[in-house]
C-alpha cells in the first residue's frame, strides 16, 4: 500500500498507508489526521481539503481538472502546488508522497 506523509501546519508529521484507489483526502480523514475537513466527502464541492503537494511530487500527479482549478482559485494560502486532496487518486507510483496542510480550510 502506498505510504503518504501528511504534514500538519504546525509541522507534525503523519505517515500512513493509503489503499490504491482512495483519494489523498480519504487517507487523511480515515486516519484522523487533522487539517483536512472534506465537508462534502470528496465531491469537489466544498474546497475544504486543500493541501500543498511537496514540490518533488507535483509532476507525478495528474494535472488539475477545470473544476478543481477554479475551486482552488479561491482557497486561502494558495500556492503553485496547491491541490484539492479529494481529487488526487492514490496509485502505486505515489508511494512516498508528501503533502502539507494549510493553516485553515475556511
Amino acid at each position, binding site marked *: 500500500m502506498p505510504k503518504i506523509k501528511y504534514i500538519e501546519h504546525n509541522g507534525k508529521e503523519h505517515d500512513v498507508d493509503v489503499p490504491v484507489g482512495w483519494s489523498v483526502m480519504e487517507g487523511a480523514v480515515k486516519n484522523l489526521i487533522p487539517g483536512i475537513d472534506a465537508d462534502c466527502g470528496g*465531491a469537489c464541492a466544498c*474546497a475544504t481539503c486543500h493541501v500543498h503537494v511537496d514540490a518533488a511530487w507535483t509532476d507525478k500527479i495528474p494535472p488539475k481538472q477545470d473544476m478543481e482549478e477554479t475551486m482552488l482559485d479561491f482557497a486561502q494560502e494558495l500556492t503553485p502546488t496547491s491541490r484539492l486532496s479529494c481529487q488526487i487518486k492514490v496509485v502505486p507510483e505515489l508511494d512516498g508522497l508528501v503533502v502539507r496542510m494549510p493553516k485553515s480550510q475556511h
Partner: protein
Amino acid sequence: MAEHFVIVGAGQSAAQAVATLRAEGFAGVITVVGDEPFAPYQRPPLSKAYLSGAMERDRLFLKPDAFYADARCALILGVAAASIDRRQQKVSLANGRVLSYDKLLLATGTRVRRIPVAGACLPGVHYLRGIADVDSLRPGLVEGQRLAVVGGGYIGLEVAAVAAKLGLEVTVFEALERVMARAVSRGLSTFYEREHRGAGVRLELNTGVEAFKGEGRLAAVRAAGRNHPADVALVGIGVIPNVELAKDAGLPCEDGIVVDDCARTPDPAIFAAGDCTRHTTHDGALVRLESVQNAIDQAKHAALAMVGKPTSYREVPWFWSDQYDLKLQIAGLARAGDTLVLRGDPAARKFAVFHLRNGAVAAVEAVNAAPEYIVGRKLIAGGTKVAPETLADTSIPMKNIA
C-alpha cells in the same frame, strides 16, 4: 459522576457533534444511538458513486472506528430510541435499555415519504435513503432493464443519470410541470430536462403515478391512465423529518423539530441538528434544510451550545448534485420574487443563475461554474449588492466581483 451526553441519530450530524464536543474539551461520556446497523456514513454518494459501484461501502463511513474509541464515544447501533422522559432526563430505547442524559442531541434525520398508491409494496419497487436501500436496488440495475423513476427531484434524477449510464431504459415520472421544482429555478429545470432527454431518459412531466402493477413483482407503472412496462422502480418523492420522539415529549415541532439559531429546543437540556430540524435563520425565516452543510454546521452549533458556548448559526446554506458530468452547486436560499440574473451560456453547459433580493445576492445556482459558486457564497454571506449587469457580464472575472 461524569456528565453524559446522548446523541440520538447516527448520521452526519452525530459524527460532527462528537468531533466538536471533544474539540471543545467536553470531558464527559458520549453515547450515540442509531437505528441503522452502521456507524455514521455519508449519504450523498448513495445515489451517485455508491450506486454506480465506483465507491465501495468501506469508503462511505465518515470516521474510522478508532475515532469513536479515541473520543470515548459509545455507539449503540441497530437500535431505535423509543421515548424521552424530559423530567427524569432519560431516553428509552426500543430494546428496553434506558439511558440517562445530562444533555441530549436529537439528530434523527428523515425517512422517505412512501407513495400511497396500490402495488407500492410489490417487489421491485424501491426507495433510497440508506445503505440497505442501495444494496437492494443495485442488483436490479442491469443493462437493458426498464427503470421507472417516480419523482424528478435530486434523488430521482441522480439515480436516473447513473442508470442511463449503466444502459437501462429510464423513464422519470414527475407530478409537477418541471423537474427539481422545489430545489432550483425554472431555467435550471429546463436545462436539466434537456440533459436527461439527451442521455436517452424519458421524462413524463405533469404525470403522477397512480399504481404499480404486477403479479407477485413489479411489471408496470400506471400513470396518466396508461401502463408503462417497468422491471424496477425507484420512488424519490421527498422525505419526512423524524420528529416523533420530540413531539411525543412535548417539544414544539412544525415539519421539523423547532430550534433557535443556536440549535436549542425550549428544553435547556435538549438540542437538535440536521435534516430533522426547523430553525430560524438570521433574517427571521423558519426553514428546514436537507443537506450535508446543514447537518455539519448546525451540529457544530448544537455541540457549542451543549458545552455552554451558544453561537448563532449564520453559515450560508449550500448544496450540490452530480448528474452525468454536470456539477450543480447551489448556495443560499432562493425565494419567490427574487430577481434572476443569468451569467454564461447554458448551451456551453457552464453557467450560473444569481438571485438578487433588494439588490443583494441572496442565492446562486451554478452548473460546472465553480467561480460563480464560490464567489456567490461570499457575496451572499456579506449581503453584498452587485449590479445585475455586472453579474451578467462574463468579461468581468468573478474574482473581480468578489
